[in-house]
């Protein structure tokens, strides 16, 4: 506890994510302990990469942090709100307003233009309809796609599609940008372009949590966390291991 408080104070930034003993066990038979009890603190403005082999628990961690799954033990706080056990209506509101999702397969609706895809992220926020189009256009300009706002996803390249998805994730100015293999479907040139865009967003103050297989993408992050068999390990500046075998990870 003390260590984390000190760490948070040291970065002098408010905490965006705080996992305390958060674990996820999928009911069997046999029960799968996808994520062992983990502690993780991410401060505002940090750029964190999570790497690990398939089946290591990366997706489980992402689903917990993204409030898509609930932890079976421990707590999760986002912006200081304990959301691990909150009712679904509140978790949905946190997803809508505080978390921006970027997926490996983009998840753009095929029959809607880039602009309409970005605007979809505002539908469940309760934001007034009036300013949405302008906000979506601003978000598209932010990712360098202002000129292609009227294009359908089928008319866009892979990199452009992921830019639209990033614009959609940014439009509500979330506390956290959660990227799940953002370059998994892209060639190396486009990968560099997208990771450059993410780095730019980080420099502009966005908090980034990137799950990736790609070492080049992971290297761009300030902090690199490895996950293996459900255990988290911080590559840089490891602290004392927790008695139960999980490592406390913090800045």
């Amino acid at each position, binding site marked *: 506890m003390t260590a984390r408080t000190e760490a948070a104070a040291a970065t002098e930034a408010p905490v965006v994510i705080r996992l305390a003993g958060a674990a996820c066990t999928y009911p069997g038979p046999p029960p799968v302990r996808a994520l062992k009890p983990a502690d993780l603190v991410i401060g505002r403005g940090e750029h964190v990469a999570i790497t690990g082999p398939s089946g290591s628990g990366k997706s489980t961690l992402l689903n917990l942090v993204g409030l898509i799954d609930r932890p079976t033990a421990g707590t999760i706080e986002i912006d200081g709100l304990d959301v691990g056990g909150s009712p679904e209506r509140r978790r949905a509101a946190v997803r809508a307003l505080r978390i921006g999702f970027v997926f490996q397969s983009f998840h753009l609706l095929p*029959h809607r233009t880039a602009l309409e895809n970005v605007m979809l992220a505002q539908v*469940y926020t309760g934001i007034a309809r009036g300013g949405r189009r302008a906000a979506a256009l601003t978000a598209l300009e932010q990712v360098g796609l202002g000129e292609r706002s009227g294009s359908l996803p089928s008319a866009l390249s892979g990199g452009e599609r992921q830019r639209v998805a990033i614009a959609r994730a940014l439009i509500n100015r979330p506390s956290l940008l959660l990227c799940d293999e953002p370059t998994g479907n892209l060639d190396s040139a486009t990968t560099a372009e997208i990771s450059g865009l993410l780095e730019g967003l980080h420099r502009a103050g966005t908090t980034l949590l990137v799950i990736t297989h790609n070492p080049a993408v992971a290297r761009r992050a300030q902090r690199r966390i490895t996950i293996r068999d459900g255990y988290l390990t911080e590559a840089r500046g490891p602290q004392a291991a927790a008695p139960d075998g999980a490592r406390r990870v913090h800045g």
Partner: protein
Amino acid sequence: MFTARRRAGGSSRLRPRDLADEALAGLVQRPGRSVLTMLGTVLGIGGFVAIVGLSQTANGQIGTAFSRLDATEVIVTDSAAAAAKTPALDFPADADARAGRINGVVAAGVWWTVPLKHGAVSARPPGAHPAGLSLNVTAATPEALAASGAVLRSGVLFNRFHQDHAQNVAVVAAPAAAQLGLTSLAEQPAIFIGGQPFTVIGILSGDQRLPQLNLGVIVPEKTALRVWGLPHHDSPAQMIIHTRLGAAPVVAGQVPVALRPGDPLALTAATSANGSELGQEVAASLNNLLLALAGIALIVGMIGIANTTLVAVLERKSEIGLRRALGARPVHISAQFLTESTALGLSGGLIGASLGVVTVLVVTVLHHWTAVLAPGLVLAAPAAGAIIGLIAGLYPALRASGVEPAEALR
């Protein structure tokens, strides 16, 4: 700018306008599929509107064809005589004149079937061979013939003179005339009824209201009374009244009192509605069959919407996952799919109702009929379509709300 967002107790929302936009986008993006999905509802609702509209229109036409006769006819029966064991006549001698004075009556007259033995009518004198014909002999006043709408082929009808003086004259229906060998009235031919000679003065081509006159022989009422006496209780006297259009019910109420002020219950007056009631029953059972078919089309349409919506839910799992990640709650997902299926049903209902009305109009114009269509039906049809869509969407919406976002986003 972040602090403004730090509301502790917020919950995600879906505005009605946004819900409508999202649902409509879901339908418009797959126009071909939406149209095919609507087809069952279109056919069902259109069938309903067309069948009900056509049957209403057809009933209207049948009504105008038959009501001319039905609505202008009153039959007065001698109910006391029918109950008696002896021959009786409860109509007064001046019954025709009394009934004729009632407002709304065009013509009114008494008639009855004369009870005669078989073979009573013959063109030859009594005793000649072969024996006579078994023709229906009717006693009628001249007014009864006028009221029943008797149409002559040749000669004349008997008149007040023949009636008052109980002349032995007869009018013969055309088929009976042929059987009796009467071809021309120029020779003033005679026939024998129960041995009595009668001069044939007219041949009848037909009668609108009294079909029994079409086959037999008609003699003046007074003559029948003089020769054969009072009508038998098996075939008591009746009065047929031809009224002006719409006056029949009123006349029926007044005529027993006008004829028998002292004992109006001896006579029973009735307007003839039985024929049209039967017709309506037949039409109703036919309509029920067609409506059942349209109902089956509606159920098939509902299953179609349910099936397509369910397929859409399975197809759009990743969209559902995305929406959940963007802050949609399960209830928002359900609402979207329910709205889509309801909109499908509503559109199907609107198109179906329009096609149904057009069908009714086309048939009506082709038959030179007057279209009759209850406006309530046309307005209710789209609402029925919407309800069908809503019901069809219930199960798919439930399935959609149960989609696990973690699985759907994988």
